[in-house]
């Protein structure tokens, strides 16, 4: 990436971004580089909850060496522009797991951009992304999977679901597969929906007030994203932050 010229929305990775907000922090610092050594098991967490109008950009370049495993839990909820990127390169038999939730309201632009390169055979990657967007917020997931020619037995999976709470909110989900090997399994699913009206009426018919009903349905939608955080206090920190953000939207 050219670190000097401000990108435009013509660039694929910036197509849905907020370039005005980006300009205020341009040029960006170098990405955070993480090496997960051969056979190592690493867990990373990122709670991006920048205040108010802040612009928060978190770029990561992760090298997962042969037989190593890297699991990332991400909650992206803060700032005017909150953008998190992962450029992941997987060695032989390596594993990458991403569990992400994006929750935005107001005029927020929240982005998650991943490039997972299966450079060697038998690597696996699983990405689960749940987005909830209200107000005039934009939430985007751009997920590219590249499988090298000799990276046979690759197993890559993306599950992306977005929930729009208002007609003025926007969700973008763009999976991209670039596969040069022939013995691979790559699955991706993306849905954008609204809260289930039948469920909302059922809850109302039992006396539940509408704000509580919406919050319960939204909690159910993101439930499970942070189940895999081993450290209990850290898991609670993520769940509490997600819930507080949801209650602000419902």
């Amino acid at each position, binding site marked *: 990436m050219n670190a000097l010229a401000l990108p435009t929305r013509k660039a694929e990775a910036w197509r849905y971004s907020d370039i005005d907000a980006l300009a205020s922090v341009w040029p960006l610092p170098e990405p955070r580089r993480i090496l997960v050594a051969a056979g190592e098991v690493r867990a990373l967490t990122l709670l991006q909850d920048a205040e108010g109008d802040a612009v928060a950009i978190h770029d990561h370049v992760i090298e997962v060496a042969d037989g190593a495993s890297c699991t990332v839990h991400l909650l992206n909820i803060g700032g005017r522009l909150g953008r998190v990127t992962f450029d992941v390169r997987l060695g032989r038999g390596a594993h990458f797991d991403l569990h992400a939730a994006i929750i935005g309201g107001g005029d927020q632009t929240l982005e998650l951009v991943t490039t997972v390169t299966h450079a060697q055979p038998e690597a696996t990657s699983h990405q689960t992304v749940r987005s909830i967007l209200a107000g005039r917020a934009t939430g985007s997931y751009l997920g590219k999977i590249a499988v090298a020619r000799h990276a046979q037995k690759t197993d890559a999976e993306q599950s992306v679901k977005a929930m729009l709470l208002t007609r003025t909110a926007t969700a973008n989900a763009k999976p991209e597969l670039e596969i040069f090997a022939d013995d691979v399994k790559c699955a991706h699913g993306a849905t954008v929906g609204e809260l289930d009206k039948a469920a909302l009426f059922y*809850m109302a018919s*039992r*006396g539940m007030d509408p704000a509580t009903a919406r919050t319960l349905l939204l909690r159910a939608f993101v439930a499970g994203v942070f189940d895999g955080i081993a450290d209990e206090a850290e898991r609670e920190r993520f769940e509490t932050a997600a819930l507080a953000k949801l209650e602000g939207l419902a």
Partner: protein
Amino acid sequence: MLQITNLSTAVADKPILKGLSLSLNAGEVHAIMGPNGAGKSTLAYTLGGRPGYEVTGGSVMFSPLRHAGLDPASRSSSSSAQASGTPDQVRGDEDWVDLLSLEPHERAAAGLFLGFQYPVEIPGVSNLQFLRESLNSQRRARGQEPLSGGEFIKLAKEKAGLLGLDMEMLKRSVNVGFSGGEKKRAEMVQMGILDPKLAILDEADSGLDIDALKIVGAGINAIMRKPDKAVLLITHYQRLLDYVKPDFVHVLAGGRIVKSGGPELALELEREGYSEVVGAEVAA
């Protein structure tokens, strides 16, 4: 308890109910029977306030009487409560409230329970969470203290036991993976916990085998057969009425009540068919 006068409803601009009138008093069980497409479910959804069921005429007045545990001082209607449209208005003068002016959750807080023909599945929300939030929403709307976790679990255990439903089922997501019979039993557990004044039960017997039918029937009797409560059973078949004996039976056809009578009317319908009893034209 309930006074429906000349009620007309349209769904997607198509008239379904065409001037339906019906009164229920406290202590009574009424059955509404009718051929498919007569408007039975539309009546239930209209009374429950489901979006998309547009009332085009008539009125529905509801008098849930005094709610147990309600502070008598808060019964007298205050002008501010009336103006703000809070559920307080249901406790107004003579206790009559315009049901159609209330939001669906306010109708429930006022004492209405709607039993669904097809109970809705809600993945990720447990029955216990669903019911506790519902009950406490109702209690807050009525100015009562919310139940603590312990108090709620005790109540849920008691009502689940009454319907022979394992507490483990209540820990699972609402209706997800439940058989047809389990869904209907879970509905009755909900009714037991929420303890309404008026229950409108839409095809409470559909999908039940004979054993489950007995349990559901006994549940309805235990929860709702009381002097201060009323039940409107909506059913296509007579068989539930063997277990929950109605005081009155009405035939709904072509969007109106075309015939009313005692329990013997249900047997007559079962024996002779709708077209014999109400005429082929209206039954069609």
